[in-house]
């Protein structure tokens, strides 16, 4: 049990469960999931579906943060992805065809990968601090999305495109399936190949890794590309859900939610060890929190304040220093047993 308590994942999972318990206490139907027209409905399903974009972005962010970096441009990249896809579909000869959607999605993802290459280039080749390097695209990216959409909210009517964000497959929302699939692929790539270990090594000690022959530059570059890819897919989901590309608001502040999810999941902003499972829990926590606020009757004005308080509480819970401070009040023997 002590071993368990010391793991960061324990506290974020506990926080998530507490949040779910709180919701259930206020709204007894919170946990219920019902099948209707072959689709699953319910609060939990909503949380999963609405949390899919944040989870996707947070996955990419986890790897970036593990290399001691950060990517602030994910929101802008998501907006660009939506803009590219919608403008392409709206402008094509057959705006309702499935094949149009396939090309649109491919094009949007391709653009995002280019944007990721740009971020990675600035960080790994020029050695610009990640927060500055990605800040460039964070601000410029929205402008780019505006240019693509001509400053309009571009709406599309295409059933195939709608599937991405709002569709169902085998009773489950497609968005959830996509997010979980990316999660699974990432987890396999990170832990079944040596990628995860090499990323951690670069994040923990870049110079030692370089001297050990690790291609630190390539690895850093790759994680930014992956992060932009994830952001792009998230952007497509958002655009699909609303059937529109809103250059101003799509994916707005999603970078902050994603960073929070990563931190709550127990990955340190100082880089190094990362936990994808932790990020999954963190993303779900963020989304549940967003659902909880209106449910328990917190006025919309206090929304952000409440969120901040909860996030601080969770971060404090995880902080080894805070936990050590609490522990030191107990008899010394407990500390020894705990440390052993």
């Amino acid at each position, binding site marked *: 049990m002590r071993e368990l308590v010391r793991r960061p994942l324990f506290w974020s999972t506990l926080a998530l469960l507490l949040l779910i318990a709180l919701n259930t206490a206020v709204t007894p139907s919170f946990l219920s999931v019902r099948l209707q027209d072959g689709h699953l409905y319910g609060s939990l399903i909503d949380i999963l579906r609405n949390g899919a974009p944040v989870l996707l972005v947070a996955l990419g962010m986890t790897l970036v943060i593990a290399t001691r970096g950060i990517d602030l441009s994910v929101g802008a990249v998501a907006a660009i992805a939506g803009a590219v896809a919608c403008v392409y579909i709206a402008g094509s000869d057959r705006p309702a065809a499935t094949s149009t959607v396939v090309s649109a999605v491919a094009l949007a993802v391709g653009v995002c990968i280019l944007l990721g290459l740009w971020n990675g280039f600035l960080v790994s080749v020029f050695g610009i601090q990640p927060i500055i390097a990605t800040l460039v695209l964070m601000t410029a990216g929205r402008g780019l999305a505006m240019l693509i959409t001509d400053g309009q909210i571009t709406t599309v009517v295409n059933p195939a495109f709608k599937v991405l964000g709002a569709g169902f497959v085998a009773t489950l929302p497609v968005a959830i399936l996509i997010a979980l699939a990316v999660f699974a692929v990432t987890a396999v790539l990170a832990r*079944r*190949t*040596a*990628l995860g*270990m*090499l990323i*951690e*090594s670069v994040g*923990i*000690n870049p*110079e*030692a*890794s*370089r*001297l*050990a*022959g*690790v*291609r630190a530059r390539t*690895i850093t570059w790759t994680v930014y590309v992956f992060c932009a890819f994830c952001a792009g897919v998230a952007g497509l989901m958002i655009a699909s859900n609303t059937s529109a590309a809103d250059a101003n608001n799509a994916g707005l502040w999603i970078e902050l939610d994603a960073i929070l999810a990563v931190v709550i999941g127990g990955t340190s902003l100082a880089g*190094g*060890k990362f936990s994808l499972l932790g990020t999954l829990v963190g993303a779900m926590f963020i989304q549940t929190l967003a659902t909880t606020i209106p449910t328990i009757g917190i006025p919309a004005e206090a929304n952000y304040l409440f969120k901040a308080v909860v996030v601080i509480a969770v971060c404090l819970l995880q902080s080894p220093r805070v936990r050590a401070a609490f522990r030191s009040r107990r008899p010394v023997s407990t500390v020894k047993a705990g440390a052993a």
Partner: protein
Amino acid sequence: MTQVTTSIPPPAVGTPVVEMRGISISFPGVKALADVDFRLLPGEVHALMGENGAGKSTLIKALTGVYTIDEGTVTVAGTDHRFTSPADSQAAGISTVYQEVNLCTNLTVAENMLLGREPHRFGRIDVKAMNRRARSVLDRLGLSIDPGSSLGEHSIAIQQLVAIGRALDIDARVLILDEPTSSLDADEVAKLFAVMSDLRDQGVAILFVSHFLDQVFEISDRMTVLRNGKLVGEYLTRDTTQLTLVEAMIGRELETLDRLEHQAPTAAPDEARVPLLQVLGLSRKGSLQAVDLEIYDGEVIGVAGLLGSGRTELARLLFGADTADAGTIDVRGSRRRFRTPRSAIGAKIAFSSENRRAEGVVEDLTIADNMLLTLQAARGWLRPVPQRTRDRLVEEYIKALDIRPPDPAALMRNLSGGNQQKVLLARWLITQPELLILDEPTRGIDIGAKTQIQQLVAKLADEGMSVVFISTELEEVLRLSDRVVVMRDRAKIADRFNDESVTVAGILATIAAGGAELKEEDSDA
């Protein structure tokens, strides 16, 4: 050597402007300075000497108020002081110019010199008066640059002089120059020394720290030597030889250790044999002067020299950790150019850095991950080392090197220095290198691990691996090496077979003499 004592009667001269008595400073677990006396006379250049870690910078920081002293007294110009901040010390007339010039390159020369003390007029900075005041200080330094020009336009040497000018404007009685010459070329050093002589004649007491022995002998009047946080002695430069100084700095422990049993590759390498590594004119500006070196299979090359002599710089160039400006490296007769460590690893070269913590250990990963890092990096991320191979290698090396704890999953950060060093050695041995470069592999580790590592080096060489062994401990170098390369002032000054005629004293003499004495004895060039 009688000079290596603390009981030299201080030569009778005027009243010291700075007198430190019985200074002790401790950090958690380390006694950085123990009962050190130090004095500084007006109108002298006083060199503070000692190897890295001897306590030079601690003593300077005690004098400049960066560190608070635990015990002892500091008297400046007859008044007792207890400095608690650099400002206190500055107020007492002590100015310091640090190695890294900490000025603002985007401000003008005058602004830098008078930063924080600008003359004001009607509530605004009086630029004219400021430039005039700066001009007069610059004249004192013999510099004819425009005080209104931006500092960034000038060379590092000028910037260094401006930093000194800033110190002079505070009307310093004591000027501390910490490694001021490390980034200067010969002309610039001459200029700096001219200024230092002038200031000395004007009665300023100058404390000078430098790794370059020639410079110390050229400019200083008196020296104080520290070793391991203790005072070794105070010497008049004109009565001291470089040999005495080097011995005082290193502290001779001439207990002769048995040479390790190791079959040296017999006799002189025959001319036809292709060396494993042939290095010609390898150099890098500011870090290493052109070095030639040949390394044959199964040879242990010991590299001796003081810290800062270019030992580490040589190793880093051989490994591609830094890139060379000039020179060639041939591996088994074919030309190679190492731009990155990765390319050197590809040529079967391994390098264990002296800076274990910053450049070796990946603290939050396990013993197993640390051991396999290089092998994995070489294979690429897509081809993970198979679990079975992994387990076998890790278990094998934990056993062979007696790594404790013998737990592959233990985090590297929890290991002692000696065990971390063994894991790093294993990391390289797993790649089966042909040349192993070890920079201070035994520094800061306990005696047991030290012996084990020395024995391992001898064994590896017997099995045909070539080793470059860099160490501050000359006894260790002599014990292990087939050939000894001596470095000084960032250049190779001697290279000879390690036979019975090579002794610690001989190497010290070589270092002190700059290689002149032994040049004719060099057994191969």
